[in-house]
Each structure stands twice: as structure tokens, then as C-alpha cells.
């Protein structure tokens, strides 16, 4: 019988190989891309606006690496079923494989960058503590969260392609109040709840707590992400099952 796992693994590997060999410097972009983004924000917020604070570029870099992972997964994951319509109109493929392929692809790149940070930061003097053991847990929490959101969106986007356009704006709405560019203590107390309930702020904070401050991530944050992820994944899977034989009929 059809093995979904084999298909996901094969496709993810093929996508990664494409990514490595299609550019001149290949996988070095997985690091260079967040580095360049961090440099741009550094110039604007630290050199020009003087709002950076100590170790701002290091602070930015962790945030951006987590953010890029989140952004690519949600963007490509939510469009994944729609974008593969030429494929599943001709061969039977269980649609659930498409969001999985996108999240695995983006996660692999993320792991590459986060391992780089985990090796580099202690060398720069940031604390290397036993709390590093929380890295896989934080990874898992964000992974589940992104998987849930992108599966649910992927199930709906083929019926209402307009969602794709809304997603770009929603992502921006999540980006600015996420503490990627600024420090949580720069936010007034009455607005702190925005950081608490912004899932991506929780994700970014978890990785910074571990990698920059040698602290354990907040338990609330971890469970908040996993809870949201499981709930949305569950609904997404039910919808995809329900619509499995209908997607190929959509234009």
C-alpha cells in the first residue's frame, strides 16, 4: 500500500538537493539569508535609531532565524495543496503529504542555522548550560504549532485562494509585535499580553532564553504552542480527509 512517509521523505530530500545545487553557493544561503536580514535591521534600529541595546546583532540573529523558519513554513505550507494541483490531478497522492513536505524542508534549513548558533554563541561568551537540553523541546513545540497552522490553512486555501493574500498581512501583523526587533522590556506593561499570546513571540523567546541567557524556556510558552498546534492539526487532518476526492475538481 501507499506509504505516505516514504513520499514525504523522498520529496523533502529532493527539494533540499534542488536547493543546494540550484544556487551557486547552495546551502550557504541558509546562513547568509538570515545574516543579511539581521544586518539590515541592525543598521536601521541600532546604527540609525539607536534603539538596539547590548549584543543587538546577536539578539536579532536568533529572532530572525526562528522567524524565517516560521514564515517560510506558513507561507509555503498553506499554499502547498493548491500549488501541487497539477500533480494530484494526474496521480493519486494523499494531500496530507504536501504540508508535511514543506515543514520538513524548512525545518531542515532551520536546524542547520540553529546548530550554527548553538556552536557559535558559547564561543562568543554566551552561557553554555544544561538548559541546551531544552533546544529539542522548543524545536518540537514550534514544529507542532507550525504543522498545525499550515495543515489547517492548506486544507482551506484551494477552496478560497484569497486566504493566501491575507496570510502575508497576518504574518506581518505577527512579526512586529513579536519581540524580534526589540526587547520585551521596551514594551509597556499594559501591552505585555500581546507578547504572551503571540505564539511566534513565545517561540523566539524560548530559543533566546536558552541560547543567550542560559535559561529554561517558559513552560506556558511550550504548552501554549503544542496545544494550539495539536488542535489546528487535528481540524486540518479532518478537513483534508473530508475533501480528499474534491481537490482535483477545483480549477
Amino acid at each position, binding site marked *: *500500500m*501507499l*506509504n505516505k512517509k*516514504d*513520499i514525504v521523505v*523522498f*520529496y523533502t530530500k*529532493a*527539494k533540499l538537493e*534542488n536547493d543546494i545545487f540550484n544556487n551557486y553557493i547552495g546551502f550557504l544561503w541558509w546562513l547568509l539569508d538570515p545574516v543579511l536580514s539581521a544586518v539590515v535591521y541592525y543598521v536601521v534600529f541600532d546604527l540609525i535609531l539607536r534603539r538596539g541595546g547590548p549584543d543587538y546583532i546577536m539578539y536579532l540573529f536568533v529572532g530572525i532565524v526562528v522567524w524565517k523558519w516560521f514564515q517560510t513554513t506558513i507561507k509555503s505550507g498553506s499554499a502547498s495543496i493548491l500549488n501541487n494541483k*497539477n*500533480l*494530484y*490531478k*494526474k*496521480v*493519486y*497522492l494523499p494531500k496530507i503529504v504536501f504540508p508535511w513536505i514543506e515543514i520538513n524542508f524548512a525545518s531542515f534549513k532551520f536546524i542547520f542555522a540553529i546548530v550554527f548558533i548553538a556552536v557559535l554563541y558559547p564561543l562568543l561568551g554566551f552561557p553554555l548550560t544544561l538548559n541546551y537540553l531544552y533546544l529539542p523541546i522548543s524545536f518540537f513545540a514550534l514544529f507542532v504549532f507550525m504543522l498545525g497552522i499550515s495543515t489547517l490553512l492548506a486544507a482551506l486555501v484551494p477552496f478560497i485562494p484569497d486566504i493566501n493574500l491575507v496570510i502575508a498581512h497576518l504574518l506581518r501583523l505577527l512579526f512586529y509585535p513579536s519581540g524580534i526587533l526589540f526587547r520585551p522590556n521596551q514594551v509597556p506593561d499594559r501591552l505585555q499580553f500581546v507578547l504572551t499570546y503571540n505564539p511566534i513571540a513565545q517561540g523566539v523567546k524560548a530559543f533566546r532564553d536558552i541560547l543567550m541567557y542560559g535559561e529554561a524556556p517558559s513552560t506556558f510558552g511550550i504548552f501554549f504552542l503544542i496545544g494550539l498546534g495539536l488542535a489546528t492539526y487535528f481540524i486540518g487532518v479532518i478537513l483534508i480527509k473530508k475533501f*480528499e*476526492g*474534491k481537490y*482535483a*475538481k477545483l*480549477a
Partner: protein
Amino acid sequence: MPNLPDATRVIDCQNIAVYYPPQNSIYRRSNKEDGFWAVRDVSFQLNKNDVLGLIGRNGAGKSTILSVVNNIIEPDKGKIETYGHSTMLLSINAGMSNKLSGRKNIYMMGLTLGIPKPIIDEKIEEIIDFTDIRTFIDKPVETYSSGMKTRLGFSTALYLEPEIFLVDEALGVGDKDFRKKSSNALHDKLSKNSTGIIASHNEKTIKELCNKALLIEEGQSIAFGTPEEVFKQYNK
């Protein structure tokens, strides 16, 4: 006893109907009538080694029927049962991923048929030989001409041997040499021990390859029988 599923039954298609809903938009008030019943009422049964010719004009619903048998579209009415047999569609641009190389697409097609990787490993050289495009096999499929894609899709499906072949006008494509080679190969496979459905307008192809034929008009079965009988009605 009619309609009792026996061990040799491969496809049982009962009164299927497929409805394409209208595209919704706030600028276009759409009601039920804007949709389209591509298939209204089609039934047929195939046993092992049967090859069915689907005959009908353009837009009669032939391709939709193939999609239903191929498990790509779920019928809105009626029932389709393939008893767990693997199916694969042979057609122009048969479901390939453009960014991936020809070789990777062969693996993909194999995996979607539920064939484990080691078995594809064994067959892949044979497949590439049959395609005659070995020099391009590691280039992305988006760089292929449509003839090359057809060669790749056809050769792969042929050698991976799905239990049910679904052919959508694929016999008339490619250059003359490949057309001849592929039609001979398909002939071999189908005459040996495979089941299949071929959608075509070509009377000669159907009479050569099929032992049963089904005439479709506006999504409805009109006649079912031997190709000779059915073509008599079609040509009236």
C-alpha cells in the same frame, strides 16, 4: 447470479456521477445550475484481463471517468470499487513534478503506486533505456519537451506495471518511432495479464487492444458490449 463480486472482478463502477461546482466569487452570483455534471450515470464492470475502450466525443466525460477509477476524484453519486488494485494514468504530462529530474520523477511515480524503493532501483535502468532520453534523465523535467515528458511517463507506467492501466489518448503522441514502440509495448502488456481502460476516438486502437467497449454521450452510458457492436452504434 449477476453483480456478485467474484475473485476475478477488478473494477465495479455503479451509476457514478461527477459534479463540477461553479467557481464562487462575490462578483458572480452562482447557483446550482452554473455547475456542471461531467458524468451523469455510468456503470460498468471489468474482470481480470478485460480491456475496456471508452468511446465518446470530446467532453463526453471520458477523462473524468478515468480520474474516478484512478481514485483522484470521488464520485458525487454512485459507487466505484477497485478492490485495492493499483492504478496509473498514462497521458500527456502524466502528473510529474517539474522541478525534479526525470530519474526522481520515476521514483515518485513508483512510490505513489506503493512500490518500495528497492524494487524501483531494480527496474530503473530498464525504464530509462525504454525512454531513449538517458542524456536528459538527471535534468529537471521542466527542461523537457512535451514529447520527452510523454516518453518518461509512458515508460515508467509501463515498467512499474500498475494492476490497472488507464490510458488517456496517450497512444497518439510522441514521434513515429516511439509511437510504434509504445503501442507495441502496451499491446504486449495488455494482452499478457493486465486490466485496463483506454479512452480514445481511434476505432483501430480500440478494436486492436480492447475486448469490451463503452459508449458515453453527455456523461451517460449509451452502449456496452464488444468493440464491434459499440462502434456500430457510435458510427450511426
